[in-house]
């Protein structure tokens, strides 16, 4: 499990980018649910943590494809492939993420284990 941050440091409606490889984005919805997906849009290298959170969806800030935070599914092009989702637990007030073992759907030019991991 990856310790992300205390729950108290992630207010509802906010997102946090975790610079692991590949990076992930952890969201706390307005309703209080904490969810994690891959941070990088599957269309082009953009940070979904910088996107627009609405309900249980995040809209990519660059080209407006929306990803479902629970399933990773994308609603409409230009992104075509889903992002991975990661299981989240809050233990003793600490957000913890269990990283998915699936192969990530990174955009062209960003191979798994390289790229947007600054």
């Amino acid at each position, binding site marked *: 499990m990856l310790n992300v941050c205390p729950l108290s440091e992630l207010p509802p409606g906010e997102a946090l*980018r975790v610079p692991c490889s590949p*990076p992930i984005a952890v969201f706390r919805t307005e309703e209080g649910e904490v969810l994690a997906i891959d*941070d*990088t849009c599957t269309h*082009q*290298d*953009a*940070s979904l943590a*910088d*996107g*627009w959170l609405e309900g249980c969806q995040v809209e990519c*800030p*660059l*080209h407006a494809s929306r990803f479902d935070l629970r399933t990773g599914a994308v609603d409409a092009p230009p992104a075509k492939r889903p992002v991975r989702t990661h299981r989240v637990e809050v233990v003793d007030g600490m957000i913890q993420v269990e990283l998915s073992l699936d192969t990530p759907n990174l955009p062209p030019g960003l191979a798994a284990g390289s*790229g*947007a*991991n*600054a």
Partner: protein
Amino acid sequence: MTATIEPGAHPAALTAQGSLLRTLPGRAYVDPAFFAAEQDGIFDQMWICAVRSDDLSGPGRFKTVQISRESILLTRNRKGEVRGYFNVCRHRGARLCLEESGEVKRAFQCPYHAWTYDLDGKLIAAPNLTSMPDIDRVEYGLHHVAVREWLGYVWVCLAPQPPSFEATVQQDVIDRLGDLASIDAYDIEHLQPGRRIHYDVQANWKLIIENFMECYHCATIHPELTEVLPEFANGYAAQYFVGHGAEFGEEIEGFTVDGSAGLGKIPGIQEEQDRRYYAMTVRPQVFINLVPDHVIFHRLFPMAEDRTIVECDWLYLPDVVASGKDVSSSVELFDRVNRQDFDACERCQPSMSSSQYAEGGVLVPTEHHIRIFHDWVLDRVGDLG
């Protein structure tokens, strides 16, 4: 274009003592270099009245306006505060917003490489941005311009160190009316545009200002206005005396094209402001006209040495606009005045480059106060002109 203009030169020195004073030389109205110097010394430096505050009705509503040589993007942030930016993408310089007005949901995005800025101008997203962590998102946000709201308008200043708004814009109003309370009485901020007319005038901006400052022409080209304000026939401009408003004629019921009754009086105005017309110039590009039931507000946008766009708003009490009352007879009066004035300015513009106007023309005594404006222009332009 052989005439030279000595900075700060007193035009009196250029003419014989007597009734007449010199105007600016012809080249001040036609020379692109002189116009460029005015952009540098005046329009890039001073507070410019850009848009009506209501044109930016909420977060993400935007207008783009050309001020001097720049396209300026005006919007409101999430808190509803007005923000102004140079409409230039910080990446490769593409014009960010091409539309004259519109609404964005959350951000302005450059259509070239998708650099994306929030309503406070901060760079919030760009392709590969997270792999360039050395890019400071505020430093590479949109360049701000200073903004200020007054009289229900958004005023902007392109200069990095704007002059005092009080000592410039508001002082021009005080110099004309005697105090700010006199204009506050009209509650212009809460009036609403009942009509807006856009005039594309093929004349130098100074001709329009000079024309507005004098009334020597009124009896000749403004028959309707002179009917409503008989004292205009004597040629003295309403702008000449501090605190003086031109009185309506005895038979006149309202500030309308035929003198018929106007609309409900603005509640805050004083008794001495009733049945009077006050006009003022706020340098460098605003005219404000006050009458008991409405306000006529001109914004001038000089586009070139021989072209000026004028946006004119007729502002009424909110219930007049909401109830759809007929405002056409008051609009028609000043629309006619505007067209008569702008026709006169367009008649002058081609002659400004005549060999016979190289040294300019003359001002009669009822126009002598225009020289204050000329001296001011020369002072602002300095030796650049």
